[in-house]
């Protein structure tokens, strides 16, 4: 379980998060939505201690990750896999080498075992024929899928997704949504997804949390979220032409 307790984060004079409480339950997919620049990605990075809260604390399975450093932080981070916005693949390694990187650097697996594991994960994301390709030769969607294969190659318990569908065409976006759902089914992982794509959020989330003006304004199941009376949520839904339940139910079926 990931828990943010009274977390405040400020950049210069801009208070991005103000005493935020948030809980991610084991095995669920929590989607964090909100307009650009409200602190969605900041929240995600706080969970894996890429950022440190100014006040409050972040715990993962009871361990205060926001206070860890050095080797203990490295051990705590082994629970996590993270998909970054652009995939964050190392440009001088092939797709296969990128996915194999954590295994080669941190395990004593034989080369044959590593290659087998990498091929399995690449197949999972539909890139089984792209092992030898360079990141620069991949499309945006393929790069994200390769990043996802790398994020899950060590079979983490928690996967963080930072804008997994941003910059993708609708077909690729739905492909990524399906991947998130299938990964959750196959690996039984806890997932936290940051997105501003509400169609995606409604299709993959067990719960949806909306951040606005540094605070959480709504946390609810997709069905309840779409019925929310909160003005910020209503405005956000209307901006993406989601005004009634049927729209997303038809879309996700």
């Amino acid at each position: 379980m990931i828990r943010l307790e009274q977390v405040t984060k400020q950049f210069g004079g801009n208070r991005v998060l103000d005493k935020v409480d948030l809980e991610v339950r084991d095995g669920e997919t929590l989607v964090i939505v909100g307009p650009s620049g409200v602190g969605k990605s900041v929240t995600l990075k706080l969970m894996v201690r890429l950022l440190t809260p100014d006040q409050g604390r972040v715990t993962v399975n009871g361990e205060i990750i926001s206070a860890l450093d050095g080797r203990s932080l490295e051990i705590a981070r082994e629970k996590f896999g993270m998909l970054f916005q652009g995939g964050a693949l190392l440009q001088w390694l092939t797709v296969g080498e990128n996915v194999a990187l954590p295994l080669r650097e941190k395990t004593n697996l034989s080369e044959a075992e590593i290659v087998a594991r990498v091929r399995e994960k690449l197949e999972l994301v539909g890139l089984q024929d792209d092992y030898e390709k360079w990141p620069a030769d991949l499309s945006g969607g393929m790069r994200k899928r390769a990043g996802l294969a790398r994020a899950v190659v060590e079979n983490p318990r928690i996967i963080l997704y930072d804008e997994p569908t941003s910059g993708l065409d609708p077909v690729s976006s739905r492909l990524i949504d399906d991947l998130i759902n299938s990964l959750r089914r196959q690996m039984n992982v806890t997932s936290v997804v940051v997105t501003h794509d509400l169609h995606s959020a409604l299709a993959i989330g067990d719960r949806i949390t909306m951040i606005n003006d540094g605070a959480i304004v709504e946390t609810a199941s997709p069905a309840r979220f779409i019925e929310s009376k909160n003005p910020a949520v209503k405005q956000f839904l209307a901006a993406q032409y989601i005004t009634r339940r049927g729209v997303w139910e038809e879309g996700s079926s």
Partner: protein
Amino acid sequence: MIIRDPEFYPPPENPVTWLGRATVNPCRGAGRAVLLFLAALKAMPHVFGKRARKETVYQMFTMGIKSLTVLSVVAAFTGMILALQTGIELRRFGQEENIGTAVMMSMVREMGPFMTGLILAASVGSAIAAQMGTMMVQEEIAALEVMSINPARFLVMPRLVAMALMTPLLSFYSCILGVVGGGVVGYTQLGVPWGVYFDNAMLYVVNRDLFVGMLKALIFGVMIVVIACHQGFSARNGAVGVGNATRRTVIISFLSILLVGYFVTRLFYY
């Protein structure tokens, strides 16, 4: 931990605030660079691992072999200019056969390591800063940290080892070329025979001179890598940030080479 929270400072309210910040921030940067160096030093035993070994050899090739052309030209012409300038003056006293001594001492003690350091700071240092900066803004460094792969071990250490091995060798190479360049000018322009030139060149130089020169080069090499990696890891805000990191790397490296070069000379020769 390489990834740090971005730092924001309000505009300085008065000259005292400005002065304080202008003093504290560089000290803080230097402290972080030293910590990065120590982290890379701590990771040194990993250099014998298969991947790190391969990466180190690759870095030695890109840092060393690819710098040879420019270094050769600069070293040879440095020796030639030294020979010409000193030769013209010494000729007034009929002492032009002593240019060998002047060129050799200048190249081995100062100009060899100094020119090597400056060239590597401009070429290799800027390249490292640009690469690390790009990786930083594209979240590749963050991805390494989340994978619990220490960037100091994975990225800094192989470059540090490669540079520490290559700079003394390149400095030695530039000394040889400089002295030979000086000899060419001595023979063709000043009429100093080859034999006389090289006899004079070897007359006063001692092993200690070579040792101090190569030590200087090693220190310069280590400084360049640490400064470049630290500046790269500090890059923010996309391409502009990467450009700034590269620019700062070259400036700080040049200043550090001058400063440290002086103090090493003072330590061994004063």
